[in-house]
């Protein structure tokens, strides 16, 4: 809404239907709170939001920022640039510098000194104020600087004061009178500054129609999917970025008679999970790379003993301790190949919070139907970034428990053998307390009765039995999804959180005259060759986009569809951050133009 002054001089706010705001400072500066407040305002205007946290593996101090993007369109990615940067120190400006748009607005906390000239590009609009000192002098605590900044930010974005007050009230009302009063005071300090120093709003925000959508991270959705699938027992060990799943379930599973148990290490986690699943509970465990390394033996044990369990791997930068809070997709090989010996496992890869929910249910059903370990492969960005999605459709959830025998069914059998040879490789399963189902389960190679056996004929049959599950499961595994013009000659393949950046890159490429189709692969193992072959069929080049060094998915595709391995090119990023849409678009177009020039 233009003020009279603005109208008089003809400076009207720029209407934005897509904006990215970064709030940065030291850990503990309250940057994430501002992101949350902004998110609420954007959503109340019907905009879709996507937010990401950039934090270090520590509690206080060190650079931390949150980025929030708002759009009239559905989004699953950060944009290509930052439009507004709120920086509580110089380090935050440094961190955001390379991403700032040409005409970016910077709100800078000058408490520790003015922003050096080297940052002051003439095209930027810089509002400088000693935010920390302002908060400290009037409220005695520096921490309220985030609300002071929020006020200025609100003016820059063209929000009415009432909107800012309302969202603060909604947040702080339940946290006590003092918290609310202090924050309202901090807001008024910021607004007074803005009255004098921010003559007009740089932006005004469009309105959208995202009402009815919910906000969720991948972790929350995965956890909720587990619960709705009938999951009742979650065993975990704290590890970034998987801990949120345990923490979401901890207060909620008990309401359904379930339990969240924190075990002493990941060895206990996977084995406790195996015991509980053996006894008949639906079980999920969740971890990241380091924990998955520890669970490796257990996963093989579940595969050999044919015990159903869902294992969520929330990938982060590796190897070893790596970068706990940063994004990577380098454990694909780990979940597909690791553990000694050969046994069947399934690996599914959702790409959005909505898919995290549906595929969490699907994974649990697959685990029990095929009696094996099923991995849900997530990555830190998918786990912890929030996006607006359709409300989860609980009514359409189906529970499939496979060949789990009731006492009546057992009584009708003349001979119950836990590892009976069957056409589809799946034996009937009974759980303890069922009469007639007494049986032996072991990780040793065994005969149909579960007794240890090294008999050669038995070994061949048992290996076929178990491994054949992979082929049979293909009919039930989540298929890939194709986007774009099916006649395009250029293809893109990706999994997990590259989904958002890829879809936006496709739009950019299309505008540049490059027609691309995209195969969002959703089952990593076994590879659904028919789907892939059909997608690769007409392509001259396919770019496999992934956040790892070696191009793990590309290698898997090359080895699965050998006749097409020559057209597979890798586009990788492994600096701990997600792809930007333009990075993908540029990589594709420069490859293609380089190729043409040859």
């Amino acid at each position, binding site marked *: 809404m233009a003020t009279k002054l603005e109208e008089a001089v003809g400076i009207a706010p720029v209407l934005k239907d897509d904006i990215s705001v970064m709030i940065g400072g030291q850990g503990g500066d309250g940057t994430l709170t501002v992101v949350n407040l902004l998110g609420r305002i954007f959503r109340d205007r019907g905009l879709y939001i996507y937010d990401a946290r950039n934090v270090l593996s520590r509690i206080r101090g060190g650079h931390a920022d949150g980025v929030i993007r708002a759009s009239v369109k559905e989004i699953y990615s950060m944009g290509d640039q930052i439009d507004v940067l709120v920086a509580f120190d110089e380090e935050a400006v440094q961190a955001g510098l390379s991403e700032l748009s040409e005409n970016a607005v910077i709100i800078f906390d000058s408490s520790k000194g003015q922003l050096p000239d080297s940052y002051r590009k003439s095209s930027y609009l810089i509002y400088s104020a000693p935010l920390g000192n302002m908060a400290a002098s009037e409220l005695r605590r520096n921490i309220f600087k985030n609300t002071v900044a929020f006020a200025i930010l609100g003016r820059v974005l063209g929000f009415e004061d009432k909107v800012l007050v309302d969202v603060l009230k909604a947040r702080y009302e339940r946290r006590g009178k003092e918290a609310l009063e202090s924050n309202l005071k901090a807001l008024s300090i910021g607004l007074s500054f803005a009255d004098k120093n921010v003559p007009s709003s740089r932006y005004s925000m469009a309105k959208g129609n995202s009402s009815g959508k919910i906000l969720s991270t991948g972790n929350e959705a995965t956890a909720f999917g587990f619960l709705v699938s009938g999951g009742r027992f979650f065993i975990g060990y704290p590890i970034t970025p998987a801990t949120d799943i345990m923490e979401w379930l901890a207060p909620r599973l008990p309401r359904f008679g379930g339990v969240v148990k924190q075990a002493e290490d990941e060895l206990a986690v996977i084995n406790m999970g195996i015991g509980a699943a053996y006894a008949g509970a639906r079980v999920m465990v969740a971890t990241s790379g380091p924990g998955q390394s520890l669970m490796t033996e257990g996963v093989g044990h579940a595969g050999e003993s044919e015990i159903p369990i869902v294992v969520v791997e929330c990938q982060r930068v590796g190897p070893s301790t790596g970068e706990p809070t940063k994004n990577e997709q380098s454990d694909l090989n780990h979940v597909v190949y690791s553990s000694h010996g050969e046994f069947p496992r399934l690996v599914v890869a959702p790409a959005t919070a909505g898919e995290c929910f549906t595929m969490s249910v699907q994974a649990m059903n697959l685990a029990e139907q095929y009696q094996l370990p099923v991995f849900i492969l997530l990555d830190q960005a998918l786990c912890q970034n929030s996006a607006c999605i359709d409300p989860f459709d609980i009514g359409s959830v189906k529970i499939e428990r496979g060949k789990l025998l009731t006492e009546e069914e057992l009584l009708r059998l003349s001979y119950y053998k836990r590892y009976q040879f069957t056409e589809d490789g799946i034996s009937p399963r009974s759980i303890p307390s069922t009469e007639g189902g007494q049986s032996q389960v072991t990780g040793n190679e065994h005969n149909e009765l*579960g007794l240890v056996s090294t008999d050669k004929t038995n070994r061949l049959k048992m290996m076929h039995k178990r491994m054949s599950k992979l082929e049979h499961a293909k009919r039930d595994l989540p298929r890939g999804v194709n986007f774009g013009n099916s006649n395009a000659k250029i293809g893109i393949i990706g999994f997990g959180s590259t989904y958002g950046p890829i879809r936006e890159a496709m739009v950019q490429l299309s505008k540049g005259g490059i027609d691309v189709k995209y195969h969002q692969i959703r089952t990593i193992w076994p590879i659904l060759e028919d789907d892939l072959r059909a997608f690769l069929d007409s392509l001259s080049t396919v770019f496999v986009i992934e956040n790892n060094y070696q191009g793990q998915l590309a290698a898997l595709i090359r080895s699965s569809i050998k006749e097409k391995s020559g057209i597979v090119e890798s586009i990788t990023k492994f600096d701990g951050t997600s792809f930007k849409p333009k990075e993908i678009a540029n990589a594709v177009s420069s490859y293609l133009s380089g190729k043409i020039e040859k």
Partner: protein
Amino acid sequence: MTTKTVQATTPIWCPGCGDFGVLASLKKALVELGIKSKDTVVVGGIGCSGSIHNNLDCYGIHSLHGRLLPTAIGIKLANPELTVIAAGGDGDGYAIGAGHFIHALKRNPSIVYIVMQNGTYGLTKGQPSPTAVPGYEGNVEPPFDAILTALSIQNTSFIARGFSGNQSQLTDLIKKAILHANERKGFGFLEVLSPCVTYNDTYKEWRERVFNVDAEKDYDQHNRLLAFTRASQLMSEGKIPTGLLYVGSNNSLETNTLTSKEPMALQDISIEKNKSRYEELLRDFR
């Protein structure tokens, strides 16, 4: 007509193995207590003694090496109405499984844990285990004592040691351990001196050294500190304390953890039953 299922097999142990004594006492205890086989789960560890789950007619599961306690605890929490008996060797339990051992003692789950202790890894042909004496097969470390360790952990509720050479005491201790667990009083920990006749035949030596504290007139089973002191005293005299060394009253893991009387493994998880309550949770996703 009942369904035919897998039958218990003959043990793989050498003639004279102490584990035969454990098996015999365990069978006797289960029969005398009238525990149904369908409700019994024996979790075996890796090693000679861990194969015991094959030698009983009930549900049996072979865990990974060192992981039988988390496996057994997972089973118990999923369905606490089961009688869960974990049984393995001391290499499995005190070496690779030591971390889980400590936490099981701390958690006090209502399961029975029988450790067949023989100072060696029999199945891999005689390497020293954590309870081996210095000098055995190149071992340079003093032996680990699980009884003192268990006494030192606050939440333990049943600590006993038996001997394969004393069947009646062993059967009695196994019965008491099962009753303790099945009455939801917590972790029935029973170490059994179970000699490996092939690699570390300690029958004769142990017969001379065992000392039954239950036979002592003024032995107080309920005093943790006194039990620790008496056990240490006896050990300094070269004796091995046996019997029911400590019984305490502490909340079991299930009491502290489970949120419903209905076992998680047997719940009705259908969408119809739970749909409206799931939909309430959608509010958490504004």
